[in-house]
């Protein structure tokens, strides 16, 4: 479902963030992307969401080469990909419900559909009761749950999370990573970039380790440290 072929990313100023990266992720897989700060994890995710273009190489998602997507096609492509961030990226002036609904408003859905699907997504992450709260009125773990609800409300084929537990205490981190695993059980392919050993070791899933932009390890049921 996701295939990278010899992907290299060089940022302006000859900063080589990724060099000759190739791997394949099957549908329904759960993958940890680990590595030290600056290893290129975020860059890799940005290439998959088409926020950045690779300098060399090709990326296939569901058989489609996303490097060749035209500008008009990118929004439609992104609607099929869920994204979760370390800093949640919720809109502070919108309630939890409105934040989730925003993803559907963007797609031009009708009010009734937006309401049903947003509430269902909030239920899945256990936040239905706090749907009317603003982000400032939520704990970090709760805010991240709302962000996950927003990422899955469109039934994405692929869910990407960049350091989703980076701002959370260990207890909340484990709860969030279990939630992501639950979502993965229901069929969504999940890729989590992290340098949080706790969650990697707790789940024992496939681990792809990056170092200075290169893949140094790719193992099933791996741990954070090789």
């Amino acid at each position, binding site marked *: 479902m996701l295939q990278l072929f010899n992907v290299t990313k060089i940022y302006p100023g000859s900063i080589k963030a990724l060099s000759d990266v190739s791997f394949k992720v099957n549908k329904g897989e759960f993958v940890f992307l680990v590595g030290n700060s600056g290893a290129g994890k975020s860059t890799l995710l940005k290439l998959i969401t088409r926020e950045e273009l690779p300098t060399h190489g090709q990326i296939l998602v569901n058989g489609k080469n996303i490097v060749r997507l035209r500008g008009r096609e990118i*929004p439609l492509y992104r609607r099929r990909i869920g994204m979760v961030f370390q800093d949640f*990226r919720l809109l502070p002036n919108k309630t939890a419900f409105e934040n989730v609904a925003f993803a559907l408003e963007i797609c*031009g859905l*009708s*009010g009734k559909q*937006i309401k049903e699907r947003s509430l269902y997504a909030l239920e899945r992450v256990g936040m239905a009761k706090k749907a009317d709260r603003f982000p400032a009125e939520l704990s970090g773990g709760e805010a991240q749950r709302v962000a996950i609800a927003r990422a899955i409300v469109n039934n994405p084929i692929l869910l990407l999370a960049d350091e989703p537990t980076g701002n959370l205490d260990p207890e909340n981190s484990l709860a969030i990573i279990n939630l992501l695993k639950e979502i993965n059980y229901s069929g969504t392919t999940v890729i989590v970039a992290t340098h949080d050993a706790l969650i990697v070791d707790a789940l024992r899933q496939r681990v792809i380790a990056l170092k200075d932009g290169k893949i140094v390890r790719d193992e099933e049921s791996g741990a954070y440290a090789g």
Partner: protein
Amino acid sequence: MSLNTVSYYFKEAFKSIFRNSFLSLASVVVVFITIFILGVAVLLIINASYLADTLQNQLEIYAYLKTGDVSIDTRALEDKIKALEGVASVKFIPKEEGLRKIKEKLGDRADILAGIEERNPLPDAYLIKTKRPEDVPMVGKKLATFPEFETVKYGQGVVEKLLQVTTMLKIFGVGIISLFGFGAVLLIMTTIRLAIFSRRKEIEIARILGATNWFVRMPFIIEGTFLGLTGSLLAAVLVAVGYYSLLLKVSKALPFLVLFRDQQWLTLTFAALVGTGGILGVLGSILSLNKYLKF
């Protein structure tokens, strides 16, 4: 596009207008001034042209032949005048008819002409009409160079002055309106730029969630258009109220003054003024989006 999306566009646009209320107000004021000046200038030009049009029928050229020169072939001369550029019609007026006209004008005091009638001192003349009022001076000057004519009379400079005023008004108008129009667009650009800036986080998130360019841009375009339309609507209303009350006063106090009153054209003019403000707004927001909202 669902109703939801449309209401989102408008909600965001109005939130933004009130968030940057000072700049929004400044934009509205500058558009207002621009459209007000434009409106006044357009009405002045319309009225000047209308006056020129009305005068057109009265604007005729009289070319008087040299008296006593019997060698002139009046037929050939008439053809020569007709061949001039801008000439619509030529009519020969023999001196008898000229005298009769003067008598008509004098009415019951025509008896003062008694002695003169036998040896009519008037010259034969041509009455020339031009196709357009602005051709009168040109044709008149050409006729004056004909050796057959003693004097050529036309409009006593009225046309020339009227047209001069119109031209000056146009140049001056275009200059000042461009200046204010430019300022208005610049201010709207700044307002939209600030709006983009204060919503940049939301834009970034919307993009990640798969928002199209239009979805991101629409609220800003609506914001700019609304600012433009508000300014121009207020200006158009003021200009219209002013003009109609002028028409009312003039028709009572100075009924002979010709003012443009065609209802349909006036309505169209005021609508065009409002539309121009809207265009300034759209222009300002699109320029700003192209400059500050890179994809």
